[in-house]
């Protein structure tokens, strides 16, 4: 099974590279270099220049993600399990959810400075709402009958959380992260174009301004691989933690 999945990934990579190759040959302009040259360049400069940038980006995503989970999961559980709190909190969430988070960036930068904190907080803001809503809905969808045998045995909230709430909301929660992560990476790119000299966003924009298309494309490839690593990690976690869903 695992081998088969990897084979499909490989095929997708080959097809995309082929398309890229054909287009570069057809256009024949420096703005679309051949993938062969890009890969050569990447091998050359990855350890020297790019690795540190990708680690910075990864760190920002990781920190924002952890923060979003630490806040969003308890909030979603509370809102899903105690309807009274949802009545009060749902309007708050729904009023703030549709605000494009990127619009808050100037405020974040004034509050937290242009450095790391505002970037991490931006990612946090993008992911946290999805997590809250997904976890809450996941918990709401649990039929009452699931709780009754446990309540009648005197189950504590801790029992209910670990036996029911956590496993029931886990798949929704992982899906939410998967969806939010794509947006988070794009926004991260944007926030990394100023106030820092590290991060894939900075690297790509910097290469572009220096009209070094080979480096720019190397950066894009690395960003894409970064996304692939994040998504496959999430997939792997889901396969292991939500084993029962694949039966």
């Amino acid at each position: 099974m695992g081998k088969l999945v990897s084979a499909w990934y490989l095929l997708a990579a080959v097809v995309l590279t082929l398309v890229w190759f054909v287009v570069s040959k057809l256009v024949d302009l420096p703005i679309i270099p051949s993938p062969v040259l890009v890969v050569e360049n990447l091998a050359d400069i990855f350890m020297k220049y790019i690795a540190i940038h990708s680690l910075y980006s990864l760190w920002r995503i990781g920190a924002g993600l952890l923060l979003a989970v630490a806040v969003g999961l308890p909030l979603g559980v509370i809102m899903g399990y105690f309807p009274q709190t949802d009545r009060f909190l749902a309007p708050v969430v729904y009023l703030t959810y549709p605000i494009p988070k990127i619009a808050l960036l100037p405020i974040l930068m004034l509050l937290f400075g242009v450095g790391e904190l505002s970037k991490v907080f931006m990612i946090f803001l993008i992911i946290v709402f999805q997590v809250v809503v997904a976890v809450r809905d996941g918990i709401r969808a649990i039929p009452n009958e699931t709780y009754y045998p446990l309540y009648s045995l005197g189950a504590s909230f801790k029992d209910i959380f670990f036996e029911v709430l956590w496993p029931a909301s886990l798949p929704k929660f992982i899906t939410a992260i998967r969806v939010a992560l794509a947006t988070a990476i794009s926004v991260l790119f944007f926030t990394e174009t100023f106030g820092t000299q590290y991060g894939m966003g900075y690297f790509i924009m910097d290469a572009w301004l220096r009209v070094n298309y080979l480096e720019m494309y190397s950066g894009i490839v690395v960003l894409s691989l970064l996304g692939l690593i994040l998504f496959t990690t999430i997939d792997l976690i889901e396969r292991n933690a939500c084993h029962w869903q694949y039966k």
Partner: protein
Amino acid sequence: MISIENLSVNYKSDSDVYTAISGINLTIPEGGTLAVIGPSGCGKSTLLKAIAGLIPEYEGTIKINGDEVNPKKQTIGFMPQNYGLLPWRTVIDNIRLGMKIKRAPELLDRKVLKKLMRQLGIEGLGHRYPTELSGGQQQRVALARVFALQPDVLLMDEPFSALDAITREEMQDIFLKLWQKNNVSTIFVTHYVEEALYLGQRIAVLSASSGNINRIVENPLFGGKDIRQNPEFFEMSLKLKNSIKKDWNQAWEN
């Protein structure tokens, strides 16, 4: 022994108070079974939930072995209509769940569990997930889960209603066998008169409108051999059906 005196449950919404059951009196002797039969919306499930300690606010008293009902103190096995199995736990973990919550590792005897699973014909299914099982198999797992706890009371909400007729009769036989071995005081809700007659030593008929007990019928046929084939069984179920119909029709007309 379970004794219920003058039990009433009201549901309060923002503007309204709705009486689900009122003035219920019942006793179930140690190791006895009671069938509760009644139309939908007559408060059957409310009654069962109250005995299970799931409804914190009620009037009257519910005593299990002399003590007021308390899920933390007594062991109350509750089997909901859809079995209440956790889809994210394997069969064996579902069965063990009750002991985990009761913090009763002494019940976690492998041999006893194995024997119980063998009696229920699910010994090979321990590592499967509930969604991989048929309805009848899920029902067996739910039975294993409650019986493994050796509960003070067993409560079942329309236990076999989701099964096809043949599987249902099979499950009823399996239940009876387990019940005879374990002698657990049992209350179950049903809308099948035949099920009430087959599994209930006594049958409480709830009234359609007022949320109280219309009458309690002693079941002389209970425990007899192959009573389903017995002409008396047909006769009695017909009689019971007709009288229930009459009562419910009256309630409709009012």
